[in-house]
């Protein structure tokens, strides 16, 4: 049993010795996949440029190009990006060089935390206020159209402080509307709030609906952030929800944080709107904006009058590519989802020949804080494009009349980034440069090594042969900790985690110290060596258990409250406690029995 555990532990720790190959990974963007054709293309390319590579193959659904030299990584990435074009994402990676037979049993090296690998950690907060405000705007439009369809005359629908207010001229209509709305919109609550001069219904979102909206805002943000992260071309990114309003993003190996933030933090939405062609722009600038329209500005600052009604928001966009039309003029091809397509078709069929504007809405932090100390975001609008509707548009259409290719590319990127219901902002960032990561690994490794060596020297000096037994247990313990950490999928090694290993190494001998001291005591009391060993082990057992359980309690608390690095420490500590109990009690017992068991002993080397 003991030997089996040790063998398994070491087997799974083994991949850590093989190191990693510098690699370039290739993955297809939406819809395209890496096939044998691309692999052949890449191989030919590498041979032509005389770049030495270990292998080019598809591994776990990703095409991996393993290289021999670190220095080749960047040039290879450039080369492949150019050759394969924009349908593929080419990212730098470090691929574990684990032999196939170890891979086959599911063994792989330890996953390193960002503080050891280098990379960026972001914590983003979703602005729920904005999400709810947007939902309320949706309610206003919903009520208007459904009341109109039902031919119930209302005198106004507007957003009020405590919900959406629908006003009526007489009580009879109000009652009719009330029963209709209650039937039609089950996910809202309606209450009558009429005063002497005003007949009105206040509509609110129900609790379920509120929760759903929040949930959706988070889920949508996560999806969009994932897409954006994929655009960055990062190997093994993490985009994860944390708590009710936050999202964690981890980008290992990213060095250009400014660009990452630009792409991630662009809390942008898009709206397609009609240009109010009847309005006089000069009048509008002077303040006389027609009802139902508003003034917006282009990138160069020139004014455009837009109708307030939004034809379509950017969350219906599923794809946008820049390219060239048949006269090689730059253009952007846009595809919409089904709902977006039918909305667009319904609208454009009556408006052929009219100009349509693409409005880019961005939320920027203002630096001001609300009462809860959260940053307030400000809405910036900019018309990025005005195009004439040439025909009835459907699920896919194109925008032409763009000045140059770079602008087309930019527009496509903006469109593709999709639209967020709720703006997000970065509330925490931790960036570790790659050099510091490597340094941390080296230092942590050195600390473990020297700490271990000191103990390995000390124990035999103090406990003689039994000290050697303890040393054996200690080495086995470190091996098993690394093996278990490599085995558990969620466990990552962080710098505090390495400190945790150092600490467990120090504390692991405690169990042996307890046992050996106890054996010495029993000997002093005049028991025979065999009896003393027996008694020593059994008497020390309950003490060891008590002591370790309390440490385990702290490890669990650390794990449950801690974030990132602290969690890593808690994991190693907990694993270390479990493995050290095993090796120090059961492991050494086996060895002691094997060495001294069944013999008549006069003395013990302890």
């Amino acid at each position, binding site marked *: 049993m003991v030997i089996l555990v040790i063998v398994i532990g070491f087997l799974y720790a083994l991949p850590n010795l093989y190191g990693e190959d510098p690699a370039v990974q290739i993955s297809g963007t939406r819809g395209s996949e890496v096939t044998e054709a691309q692999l052949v293309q890449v191989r030919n390319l590498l041979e032509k440029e005389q770049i030495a590579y270990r292998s080019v193959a598809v591994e776990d659904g990703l095409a991996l190009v393993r290289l021999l030299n670190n220095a080749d990584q960047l040039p290879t990435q450039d080369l492949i990006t150019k050759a394969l074009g924009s349908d593929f994402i080419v990212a730098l990676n470090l691929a574990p060089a684990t032999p196939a037979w170890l891979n086959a049993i599911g063994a792989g090296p330890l996953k390193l935390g960002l503080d050891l690998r280098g990379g960026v950690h972001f914590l983003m907060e979703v602005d729920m206020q904005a999400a709810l405000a947007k939902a309320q705007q949706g309610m206003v439009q919903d009520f208007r159209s459904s009341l109109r369809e039902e031919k119930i005359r209302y005198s106004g629908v507007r957003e009020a402080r405590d919900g959406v207010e629908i006003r009526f001229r007489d009580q009879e209509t109000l009652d009719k509307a009330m029963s209709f709305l209650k039937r039609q919109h089950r996910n809202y609550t309606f209450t009558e709030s009429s005063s002497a001069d005003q007949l009105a219904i206040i509509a609110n979102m129900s609790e379920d609906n509120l929760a759903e909206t929040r949930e959706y805002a988070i889920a949508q943000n996560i999806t969009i952030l994932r897409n954006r992260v994929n655009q960055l071309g990062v190997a093994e990114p993490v985009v994860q929800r944390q708590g009710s309003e936050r999202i964690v993003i981890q980008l290992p190996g990213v060095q250009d944080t400014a660009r990452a933030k630009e792409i991630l933090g662009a809390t942008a939405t898009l709206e397609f709107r009609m240009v109010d062609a009847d309005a006089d722009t000069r009048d509008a600038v002077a303040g006389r904006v027609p009802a139902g329209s508003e003034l917006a500005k282009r990138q160069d600052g020139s004014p455009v009058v837009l109708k307030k009604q939004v034809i379509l928001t950017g969350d219906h966009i599923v794809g946008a590519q820049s390219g060239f039309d048949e006269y090689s003029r730059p253009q952007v091809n846009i595809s919409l989802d089904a709902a977006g397509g039918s909305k667009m078709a319904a609208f454009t069929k009556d408006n052929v020949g009219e100009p349509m504007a693409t409005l880019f809405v961005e939320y920027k932090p203002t630096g001001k804080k609300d009462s809860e100390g959260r940053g307030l975001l400000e809405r910036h609008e900019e018309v990025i494009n005005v195009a004439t509707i040439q025909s009835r548009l459907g699920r896919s259409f194109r925008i032409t009349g763009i000045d140059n290719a770079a602008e087309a590319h930019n527009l496509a990127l903006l469109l593709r980034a999709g639209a967020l219901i709720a703006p997000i902002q970065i509330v925490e960032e931790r960036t570790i440069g790659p050099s510091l990561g490597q340094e941390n690994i080296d230092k942590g490794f050195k600390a473990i090594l020297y700490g271990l060596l000191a103990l390995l020297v000390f124990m035999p000096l103090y406990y003689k042969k039994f000290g050697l037994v303890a040393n054996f247990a200690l080495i086995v313990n470190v091996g098993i900790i690394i093996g278990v950490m490599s085995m558990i999928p969620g466990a990552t090694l962080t710098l505090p985690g390495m400190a945790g290993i150092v600490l467990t190494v120090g504390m692991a001998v405690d169990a042996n110290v307890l046992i050996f001291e106890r054996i010495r005591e029993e000997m002093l009391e005049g028991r025979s060596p065999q009896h003393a060993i027996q008694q020593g082990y059994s008497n020390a057992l309950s003490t060891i258990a008590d002591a370790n359980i309390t440490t385990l309690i702290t490890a669990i608390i650390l794990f449950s409250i801690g*974030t990132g690095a602290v969690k890593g420490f808690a994991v190693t500590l907990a694993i270390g406690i479990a493995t050290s109990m095993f090796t120090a009690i059961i492991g050494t017992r086996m060895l002691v029995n094997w060495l001294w068991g069944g013999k008549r002993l006069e003395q013990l080397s302890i």
Partner: protein
Amino acid sequence: MYFSLFNPKGVVPFMSHRKPFVILSILIVLASFASLAINKINWGLDFTGGTLIEAEFSKPADLTQVREILTDKGFDDVVVQFFGSSTQVMLRMMPREGENSELLGDQIMQVLRDGTGDDVTMRRIEFVGPTVGKELAEQGGLAIIAALGCIMLYVALRFEWRMALGAVLALAHDVIATLGLFSLLGIEFDLTVVAALLTVVGYSLNDTIVVSDRIRENFRKLRKGSPEEIIDTSLTQTFNRTIVTSLTTIMVLISLFFLGGEMIHSFATALLFGVIIGTHSSIYVSSTLALALGVKKEDFMPKEIEEKEGADQEPLV
């Protein structure tokens, strides 16, 4: 015979000369409180919020020049200091009102590169928003209190309430003393230090439990003897183990302290000091308190049904 650090002839009367040690403990706690009140704690970025940048220059950096460059560009509240070596510089600033603080790190790196003409490389940027900082501080405090509570409960169930109270007060003593040291030396107190404090709690408790375990055993085993004598006997018996374990732990911690690098320096400091103070407290604070609370033989005698030692534990294999 074997070599031993400590080879007592008979029982060492720990308890009879406990006075100076108890006074020492009281002094340490009082001094810690005084230092906490006067010097406060140098809260790290995790708790205050703000931005921290670690930059590496290709040649030894001139801090005065760096400060001037930053002041020129309007970053006048930046704390600039060396970090580990003369080419590595740490910059820290508090959260600013009315600015896009998440971009601050990159802006400052750019200012440094332009200003010094040196190819300054970024080693680390950390930005923590003020709300997050507040939350982290609350969580950290909560964790320590929760840990102490859980441990007290466990010890009270396993042993006896007087021992539990003694053990937990000993732990509080260690935590307060470590906090005092941090405030006295002005070492930065960040999240990893909270982890270290919790580990100290776990470690010191480990020591205390071993002693308490022996006290319980001896109360049951030895017919004669006052509580004081029994505690003395127990402390004497476990003394070698206490010292050896502390020694081995301190050995690896010293390795961590000197070789582990700047990022876990505060962490190693907290542990190193905590282990030393924890050794002291497990001998003097917890047993003295239990004794003062009037622990006696009857408290440990098994009730009616003879309970087998360790029978209430799950089997280990």
